[in-house]
């Protein structure tokens, strides 16, 4: 079985994150860049399956700027067998459509039985990439899984939707996305880190993948304006003198919030 795991670099949510007010793009120098945690969980799922099933090939796939090699190597150090890094100047500021097209082309080129992704990134919070990739690859999509069972021919799991809980399944090949209910990632050990240096890491550009960034027939999403919101000002702050509960009740009632 060949499992491709989609891995995205994001600004660390534990620090302040900035958008460039000139370009509207993420200011990559303003924050620490890390693998999005949900992607690490996606990789953990693939690696756990590989641990239990010999002959499983886990490939880390990332579309990211030049400097992303360290992040991708972390995926290899965790235990992935190989990695693909799509890197092209023309992808700077790529919208979801171009990103999906590019990822799908790389996945098709690599070959796959299963594609595993996180349900939504912490930066764009679009949560649409798995669906777009599934559509372009022409395979079933099983999104938002909070538990996953992979076997030779299929994948199944639990999917929490607005009105209840579904048990869902699909035959392979398929694309799945997982939620944070899945186990957190393993830490790369020393052996893994050493081994990662020898594992294949392929770098591809758009020409390799036959993707045109500015295809005139494809609509793209563009940013028209970006503005920093003034920080929220603090309001009333009181120290409890035995009647704060009463005062808070009054505040809620006066503001029609209770």
């Amino acid at each position: 079985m060949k499992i491709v795991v989609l891995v995205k670099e994001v600004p660390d949510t534990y620090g302040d994150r900035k958008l460039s007010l000139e370009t509207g793009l993420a200011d990559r120098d303003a924050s620490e860049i890390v693998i999005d945690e949900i992607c690490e969980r996606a990789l953990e799922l693939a690696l756990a399956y590989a641990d239990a099933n010999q002959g499983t090939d886990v490939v880390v796939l990332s579309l990211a700027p030049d400097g992303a090699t360290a992040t991708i190597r972390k995926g290899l150090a965790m235990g992935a067998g190989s990695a693909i890094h799509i890197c092209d100047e023309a992808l700077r500021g790529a919208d979801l459509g171009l990103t999906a097209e590019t990822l799908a082309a790389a996945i098709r080129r690599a070959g796959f039985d299963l594609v595993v992704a996180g349900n939504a990134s912490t930066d764009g919070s679009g949560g649409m990439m798995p669906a777009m990739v599934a559509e372009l690859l022409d395979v079933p999509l099983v999104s938002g899984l909070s538990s996953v069972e992979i076997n030779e021919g299929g994948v199944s799991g639990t999917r929490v939707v607005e009105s209840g809980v579904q048990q869902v399944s699909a035959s392979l090949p398929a694309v799945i996305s997982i939620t944070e209910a899945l186990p957190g990632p393993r830490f790369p050990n020393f052996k893994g880190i050493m081994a990662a240096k020898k594992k294949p890491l392929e770098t591809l550009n758009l020409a390799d993948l036959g993707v045109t960034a500015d295809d005139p027939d494809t609509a793209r999403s563009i940013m028209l304006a970006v503005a920093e919101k003034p920080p929220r000002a603090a309001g009333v702050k009181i120290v409890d003198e035995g009647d704060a509960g009463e005062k808070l009740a009054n505040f809620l009632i006066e503001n029609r919030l209770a």
Partner: protein
Amino acid sequence: MTEFPQNAILVVVEARASGELEQAAAGLFGAAAGAGTPVALVLAAPGAGKAAAAEAASLGAVRVLIAETPDPAVLGVPGVDALASAAEQVQPDAILLSHSLDGRDLAGRYAARTRTAVCVDAVGVSRDEEGVVANHSVYGGAYNVTSTATFGPPVITIRQGAVEARAEAQPETSETLSVTPSGKPAARIDSFDEETAVATRPELRGAAKVVAGGRGLASKEQFALVEQLADTLGAAVGASRAAVDAGYIPHAHQVGQTGVSVSSQLYIALGISGAIQHRAGMQTAKTIVAVNKDADAPIFEIADFGVVGDVFKVVPQLISALEARKK
């Protein structure tokens, strides 16, 4: 069949298994009415379309297209097929969907199939000289961004609970949409449990009021205080990552950058310090209330009403004061 309005906004809404429209529907029609004429595509189980169409009209749909899925066990694909057919007929200026799991899947698959541009997780839509634009609040509410498509109708997903506007009810004008099935491979829904346990309490995502607890609650047992206040206010229950990691409450309740983002009318943070991670998920709430015994907690920097005090003293008093007013 009569022509569709020139400035149609196609609103895609799904009927739940129970037959009612999804919770976000009212906000979607409200948003659409502010940017054009709302036309609905209602996705429903066999036999449920007519009732769902009536609800869509009552929420502001001027015209309703009904697509009853031939096989409710097929996940996602029938909805994409229906949307493709509806968009072709209506030729809308924009397509609006909820930024729910199903809404995102539908929007993503449709956009990929038709090479249409998507604008995700919008908190509102408006119109400029060129067409419909989406307004976003990104990086936890730190930036306002406006986006649109280079050409063609943008597919816009709207954050649940973000739009307050409501559209005027319309007389029902509905028709069945004829859909050409794509036959694309799809996953199957093998079984479904309607969650009745949470039915008495609103869902976190999209809730108008949220009461959230943090590590200050100190134990799983004492976290019940958060639930008590939530029930008094008819609010949803949220939690900080620290409370989730400590096992006070399941992860589904986590509010924050890596959990659920909420834009509620009221957000009450109990025993939550207000780390950036948490604030990112709630600082677009309209009114923020915080109770924390640490006067230096960062949550007070953004609270409209902050109480420096012991949650175990302040909150019970608050609950009894609110209950006394109700009588």
